[in-house]
């Protein structure tokens, strides 16, 4: 399994995510600049947190025009896995790879704290090692994490079972307590909490490892199936 971590100017969680994938989860990974034009050799492409292009104008609004985005779209269209965390989630929404949008937090302030979540769907490529309704704690750190989608879109998301993580104590006003969701096909996930910040007991917990372990399990299964 090979993973790419995209690095936009202003990304600041790219190295943390690389560490979580590579060192802590044993997934062969590398940083790929936003100027790259190909993403052909990766099973998983991660869009990390940070403030891409300063997040001036609106979070993710400028990053969506980066050169790498067309390759990312192709990768997603081919069924390749995409994981967007925090600013990555915002970018994927701006790019239309995920439904809905992320608005300013309800209290209009940046919030950084450990946040309890419920894993509400364990059938996804991103959550298959968790148990149904398992409560996990992942750190959040965002100003614009208040998930919104139009009523009909939201109804479809729920009907399709696209919501993977919900907040236990909704910190930011997200509709339906949505903390992380996939596209309809299930191969693209966006989440505001940071699983890459919860991979070592020393730093407060390891609940985030499940996301990477799930992806690894998914890829290994796909490889095994292909071999058959």
């Amino acid at each position, binding site marked *: 399994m090979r993973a790419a971590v995209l690095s936009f*100017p*202003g990304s*600041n*969680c790219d*190295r*943390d995510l690389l*560490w*979580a994938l590579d060192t802590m989860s044993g997934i062969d990974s590398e940083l790929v600049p936003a100027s790259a034009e190909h993403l052909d050799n990766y099973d998983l492409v991660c869009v990390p*947190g*940070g*403030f891409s*292009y*300063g*997040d*001036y104008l609106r979070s993710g609004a400028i990053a969506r025009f980066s050169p790498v985005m067309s390759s990312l779209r192709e990768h997603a269209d081919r069924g390749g896995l995409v994981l967007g965390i925090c600013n990555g989630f915002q970018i994927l929404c701006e790019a239309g790879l995920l439904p809905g949008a992320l608005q300013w937090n309800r209290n209009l*302030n*940046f*919030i*950084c*704290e450990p946040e309890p979540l419920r894993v509400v769907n364990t059938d996804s490529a991103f959550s298959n090692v968790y148990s149904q309704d398992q409560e996990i704690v992942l*750190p959040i*750190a965002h*100003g614009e994490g208040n998930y919104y989608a139009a009523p009909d879109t939201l109804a479809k998301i729920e009907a399709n079972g696209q919501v993977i993580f919900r907040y236990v104590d909704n910190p930011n006003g997200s509709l339906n307590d949505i903390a992380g969701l996939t596209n309809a096909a299930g191969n693209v996930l966006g989440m505001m909490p*940071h699983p*890459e*910040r919860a*991979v*070592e007991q*020393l*730093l*407060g917990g390891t609940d985030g490892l499940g996301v990477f372990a799930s992806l690894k399990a998914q890829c290994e299964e796909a490889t095994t199936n292909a071999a058959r």
Partner: protein
Amino acid sequence: MQRVEMSPRDIAIKKPYLDWGLSVCEYDRFRTKLGRLPNYTEIGLASGMWSEHCAYKYSKPVLRQFWSKNERVLMGPGEGAGVIDIGEGKAVVFKAESHNHPSAVEPYEGAATGVGGIIRDIFSIGAEPVAMLDSLAFGELTEPHTRHLLDQIVAGIGGYGNSIGIPTIGGETNFDPSYARNPLVNAMCVGVMDKDLIQKGRASGVGNAIIYVGAKTGRDGINGASFASGDFSDAEQADRAAVQVGDPFMEKLLMDACLEVTRKHRDALVGIQDMGAAGLISSSAEMADKAGFGMELNLDLVPQREPGMIPFEIMLSESQERMLLCVRAGSEDEILKLFKRYELDAVVIGHVSDGHQFRLTHKGKLVCDVPVSLLTSDAPVYHQHGERPARLAAPQADFVPEIADVKQTWLALINQPTVASKQSLYRRYDAQVKTNTVQLPGGDAGVIRVRGTKLALAACTDSNGRYLYLDPKRGGAMVVAEAARNVVATGAKPIGITDCLNYGDPTKPENFYELEESAQGITAACKALNTPVISGNVSLYNETNGKAIYPTPMVGMVGLIQDLQHVTTIALKNPGDLLYLVGKTGPDFNGSELQKLLTGDIGGHLFDFDLDAEVATQKAVLRAIRTGLVSAAHDLSVGGFAAAISEMVLAGDFGASVEWSQIPAELFAETQGRFLLSVPTAKQGDFAALLGGNAELIGTVSATADLSVKLRGGVDCQFSRAELRKAYEEGIPCRMS
């Protein structure tokens, strides 16, 4: 605002420099040393370079007293930041800087650019910035203006630090009417590097190129160093044009690019310095001065944001996110290409010259031709005379608290904004980016691991203007000791400090006395604790309408944790663990939060402080922690025992049951040199042997979540977790809305 350049003759007559903070005497000094009438640019440069902010002309005699060398110090004051050896080939780099004046006028940008400036100081040494801290002081939250300042200053610190991706791991926020019109905003940055990669701000070697990189130069913050070296008054509208605007995105690119230069292009790089106070002039003149060379710059080549800027403006602009490099002749393209990759403006604007002249050309004309030293080492130094303030000669009577209801006083005290939880503030800062943060804000000190080693660093900021107001010297020593106590409680050995000296107008003898005396106190404590002052800054003129703030030196302390296993937190962890109070408690209430709470003010003779006992206690506690005898540790400071045990209970899941044998009021005494520790029963013998009579067993950790305090005479004080939490956590939020 369009500036018009006057002729040298007009300058001599009309004295425009008075508005820039230069006195007639200083003008004469400059003119005499120059040997002719200075032109508009030259005298403008002098006004920036001879400001207190750049020249330390009033504080230098005091700063010289600081003790700044020991066996670990690799680089002391004088460069962008100080550097200390931490072993395993690594070094820690840190510095703090004040941004009080800009933050008073434009709180968001003032605070944000304070963060940006101190980060540049750290990466200019070649270190990767890994942690931020801050120290803030405000008036009372009952004033709407204070609430606005607090909200916007916190937003500004977060806005910059969160975006650039450096975790804010700790800090302090204090409230007292003394700071109502002069809020204090001190920012500290900590960096880590390989110790053989230290860079210096030097421009040597005739013909070597001077490269400007980063944001374009605009008319923002022009002569901000002079602005920060004057007081405020109601009569004068604060000068908004003197406040800069920050761009953390630009700085992130600049930081990443400069670190690449310092790590991978060492052969090309001669020196690097950030453009902070007094912008291009201070960075260029200081780089030339330190190397003993001259410099020639062509100002037409400086990237400019707006047309029509005159040399005075170009040189004194404090536009943010700019760095100056000296690069070996022939290697210019290599460096310019690197910056281009980061989409940064980088231009060769001049070169190092033979001799010792600082020359500037603009539109083909020579607009400045002065000896470098005239701008730097020839700046005046004033030996002020201090005079003991009358209040110190005749302090008011000792405060003897009368506590009618211990429980009510306790809850009111931990609800005071200075004592109460700062969670509502620090949750607005990203504390975990870079995934190194072992101890998040809310403990005694922030702790980060040093990647690739088993070392960790603890860092905290501390100040207490009230103590210094009552006794500048003793109070100064106490602040250093408390900062050290904080890092010791996390399992770290204190290794050095940085400071921001926040005081009033130094030309007033009483203010200067406070500065001088407190420096002596700080120095005594630094020597006793073996924590040299490796960097810092001064912020004088913190006064409004002639009234100065409390003398408030801010100490940023860094401690070294030898092994990650030694990291200790304040949370109570195991029911049955024994609670020990280390250090003796006395009736020490003058200057305390209790006095403030009960009387609305502070006064009296500051209580005694035994520095030797403090050092011995800290050493013993650190040994106990390193030996694995301690399961939780907390230092005692503002709010005394009551605040400390409340915090230990609230930080974990367990309660405590304690017996207080002294008079009830001493629950709130602020006697120095004390810790509250929890010790597993199995370690009791070893612990008692190590601490001896200096530790008193006062209770146990209980399985219930609540706190029970038995007072003398059989009175019981019971606190449910919910009521403790409400009082502690709502102290600030309930006053903000």
